[in-house]
């Protein structure tokens, strides 16, 4: 049928685009390249392909055009540096996080974005910095979630407070806070069940969990971090807004940056909501975590594989 012909053509088109993208980029930012319409069209493609979003991309390109005019830039090289500056500035709220003593970190996010894994990595990181760490198995919903965090706790060598599957998540967190206080643990990291942000009841549950921590542990530095999957597209903005509404997130961890996705959606989130990106996850291993660096992030984004 005609449909198949279209697919075949499109498929070929995509392959070609992907192959030529790398070439074009090296020439796009390759030094003396001209700053013409082609340049801006290619740039648009790169930014949109990085999940920055059509609207934010437009804004960035506009800012770059202004800058080019103002500074009378001539070469792609100069433009690249300007671009990095513009995007880095948009993410200026992002800064590395230094845990205080005591700190409690609540990790929230939709299903499968890497919450439990990043808890393992964070625990290991802080422990290696000489802090004492405890986990709370707040995902009492998903099958074998408690076991999963338990295995990470063993790897890290940290205690893990857990109840049975199906029990009340807020109650686990409550117990964990008590226990962390009693043991004078430096950093308590709490897992939560993955939940889609449009499920009202589940989001209300999160509100409750958050207020338990607020009430029970006012002296701790309270961090609520939204875990995002770098492969996620524009929906991440809706996620951030919904989670912020019930639990006041003050940080983002951007997981799965080891794939081909660029995670550009955090630019909008960071910029509009002023929520700093704290870490990026770069694999499934215990050490696969890095503090977020906006400039580096930006450079990686415009350098395609």
């Amino acid at each position, binding site marked *: 049928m005609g*449909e*198949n012909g*279209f*697919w*075949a053509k*499109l*498929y070929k*088109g*995509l*392959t070609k*685009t*992907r192959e030529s993208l790398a070439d074009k980029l090296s020439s796009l930012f390759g030094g003396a390249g001209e700053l013409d319409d082609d340049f801006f069209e290619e740039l648009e*493609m790169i930014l*949109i*392909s*990085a*999940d920055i*979003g*059509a*609207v934010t991309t437009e804004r960035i390109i506009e800012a770059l055009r202004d800058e080019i005019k103002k500074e009378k830039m001539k070469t792609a090289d100069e433009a690249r540096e300007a671009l990095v500056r513009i995007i880095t500035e948009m993410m200026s709220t992002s800064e590395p996080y230094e845990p205080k003593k005591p700190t409690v970190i609540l990790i929230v996010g*939709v*299903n*499968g*974005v*890497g919450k439990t894994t990043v808890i393992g990595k964070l625990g290991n990181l802080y422990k290696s910095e000489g802090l004492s760490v405890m986990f709370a198995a707040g995902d009492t*919903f*998903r*099958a*074998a*979630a408690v*076991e*999963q965090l*338990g*295995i*990470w706790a063993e790897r890290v060598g940290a205690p893990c407070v857990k109840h049975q*599957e199906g029990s009340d998540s807020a109650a686990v967190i409550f117990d964990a806070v008590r226990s962390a206080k009693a043991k004078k643990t430096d950093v308590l990291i709490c897992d939560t069940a993955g939940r*889609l*942000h*449009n*499920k009202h009841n589940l989001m209300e549950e999160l509100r409750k969990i958050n207020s338990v921590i607020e009430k029970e542990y006012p002296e701790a530095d309270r961090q609520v971090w939204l875990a995002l*999957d770098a*492969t*996620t*597209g*524009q*929906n*991440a*903005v*809706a996620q951030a807004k919904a989670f912020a509404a019930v639990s006041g997130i003050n940080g983002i961890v951007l997981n*799965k940056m*080891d*794939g*081909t*996705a*660029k995670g550009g*959606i955090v630019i909008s989130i960071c910029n509009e909501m002023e929520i700093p990106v704290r870490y990026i996850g770069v694999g*499934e291993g215990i050490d696969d975590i890095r503090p977020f660096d906006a400039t580096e992030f930006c450079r990686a984004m415009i350098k395609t594989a």
Partner: protein
Amino acid sequence: MAFEGLSQKLQNIFKKLTGRGKLSENDIKEAMREVRIALLEADVNYTIVKDFIKKVTERAIGAEILQSLTPGQQVIKIVNEELTALMGSTQSKLTVSPKPPTIILLCGLQGAGKTTMAAKLAGYLQKQGKKPLLVGCDIYRPAAIDQLKVLASQLQVPVFERGTADPVETAYLSVDYAIHKLADTVIVDTAGRLHIDEQMMQEIVAIRDKIKPTEILLTIDAMTGQDAVNVAKAFNDSIGIDGVIVTKLDGDTRGGAALSVKAVTGKPIKFAGTGEKLSDIEPFHPDRMASRILGMGDVLTLIEKAQSEFDEKSAAELEKKLQSNRFDLNDFLDQFKQIRKMGGIGSIMGMMGVDKSKMTSEEDAEKQMKRTEAIIQSMTMKERHNPQILDGSRRKRIAAGSGTTVTDVNRLINQFEQSKKMMKMFRNKKKGFKMPF
């Protein structure tokens, strides 16, 4: 968000247009800018959007505006139709192996929802009277096999696993185990893997080669962004997928990734995951996806209504034809197509004079319908207008042309005569009655 406003924006653009008639190039250009942003914000891949806009623009310029629609609605209608065409309009079923067991291999990125989906599929097939076996091959993620076992026990479906032993061997052994246990469907859950992880991709190729799956299904998160094309292409290139499952569609994402994946692989999306409960699995409806991506369900309903008014008009026309005895095979085919569009298989079966109890499945009905269409399409216009001229040699030619037999052709002509009679009967019985099907 920028998105909610698309229909509003389009309406505004076209408000300036007071006249009816045809869509002008300038109106379309402005409208397409909005459509483009909408599609991009819905995560449809950049390149696909580009091609799509080009195609729609070409079609829309100079298009006649339907009487019952505003120009804005007309554009939306065209956009929606093209999007639906891209998504594919028919639902795709799981392939069943003629020689049991049917083997389903799930693959995908980390966190896409494979394990949950494996269990959901098992539950779904169980309800259809199948005997599934779940196989746990994710030896990497902590407690992944525990998760599968917990879910399986909720369904009382058996699990085959060998802890953290070689997953290739586990998959291989599971097939014999299934045969031994008289399971007719094997569902293999695999570890999430990055499409650029060579070693892990080799592992899944090895699993494929060992078990020769009936279906390899790529599981993809509905919230995936622009990268969906890279993922889908890489999985398809290295192991050759047969279909796709989109998960987490119960979220509020537009789900443009579904379109991207369909575009880049050409493979159908077979199922959708719509919740955390094991019963939250649905056969995928590509046509609904198109309107979801556009985010304009309400406008589309309006357009549909206008369209159906339009259809009513044609129904009235048909009535007139019947009265003057001009109802011919062309009309018969039209009616057929219309019902097909509405998916009213049951009524079609009735129309074709098929005894429902003798019909084994919807697939049979589908085949029947295709045959009917083929036969009529093999007739000349003259023959369609005057079926009475269809003598033996003409029938023979039509049978050959449509790949059917003369008996099939005869049957169809009988059906045509019968429904003509039936319609007349209905009309006489009940005034105001529109169509019997």
